[in-house]
């Protein structure tokens, strides 16, 4: 029991802070990525009763523009994580939709399990799965198409911007690997 609670002490050291240039590149990348998504969404998708921007892309932006060396931020995880989680979320909503709490819990847990199995772990995927359950009527009406638009396509756009912006800096290289 003592050992159990002693684990909660932590005891490690936090990593060093990054320099100002890293902060600026991360800012620029995330601004451009979310900006492009927002623009495309409002100009082309929302008039057609679709959307291109969901909350989980904010979290993806943190990874693909600020933690670009992380395995969680690599293309396989970014695209695979969102699509797999989107499919898991829609499946859980359609099967357990009446009990929202159960559908939400199952969507997130199933998406995590599937991402781990397929080696596509991408934390924002959990949000993509959750949104499929607790999202608006517009999201629910998309059915399994939600996993591809906005989830998959949005991730592809974030990836394209990441490739363009992250590699402008001489100290940065993205991706570390594709698959």
């Amino acid at each position: 029991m003592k050992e159990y609670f002693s684990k909660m002490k932590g005891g490690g050291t936090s990593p060093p802070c990054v320099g100002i240039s890293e902060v600026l590149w991360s800012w620029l990348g995330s601004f451009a990525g979310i900006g492009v998504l927002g623009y495309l969404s409002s100009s082309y998708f929302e008039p057609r009763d679709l959307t291109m921007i969901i909350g989980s892309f904010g979290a993806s932006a943190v990874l693909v523009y600020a933690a670009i060396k992380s395995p969680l931020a690599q293309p396989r995880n970014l695209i695979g994580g969102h699509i797999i989680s989107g499919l898991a979320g829609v499946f859980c909503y359609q099967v357990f939709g009446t009990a929202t709490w159960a559908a939400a819990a199952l969507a997130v847990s199933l998406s995590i399990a599937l991402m781990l199995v397929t080696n596509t772990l991408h934390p924002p995927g959990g949000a993509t799965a959750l949104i499929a359950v607790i999202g608006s009527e517009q999201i629910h009406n998309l059915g399994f198409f939600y996993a591809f638009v906005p989830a998959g396509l949005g991730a592809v756009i974030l990836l394209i911007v990441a490739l363009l912006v992250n590699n402008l800096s001489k100290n940065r290289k993205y991706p570390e690997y594709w698959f």
Partner: protein
Amino acid sequence: MQEIELESEDLHAALEELHQYVDVTEEDLKKIYAIALRHARERLTFKVPVKDVMTGDVICIKKDADIHEAARILSQNRISGLPVIDEEKHLIGIVTEADILYSTGMKKSHDFRDILRHILGEPHPRINKGSKVEEIMTTQVITTSPDRDIKEVARILDEKRIKRLPVVDENNKVIGIISRANIVRYLGKQ
């Protein structure tokens, strides 16, 4: 290999030098380093040259020896193959139990009917290849140098489905033999 103990400040400096956010803690980095170092050490220590494992006191047979002599040597020494050498002790072939059996009429790969014939006492048609070792030996011998890693040798033995490799020096003179048993015995001692 010189032991290097990583301090927290070294890891902190390394992370800082990357100039980017890396989602790994110093503690995990230290653990990864220690494990990787252990694996590297294991990999290097496992590289064992053939000369450390082979049987150096190898029994050879001259090419003009009689096959009955070869059979006697194999039987007396409880071995299944003999390197065949010329006058200058150069390796020119290998003679195995299978070669001798083949010369007496046994097929190298016999089926159920052959075994049945044998039980019923049906005589084998003698394949009269000759009575000298050089007439029945296998001439295309796969050999190894004494410095090769035994892992490579194990792979060859497995792939070619053979039991032993003669070890030869740069002049093709037999200096030893390495068998499956040598490798297994060595690994058993580790």
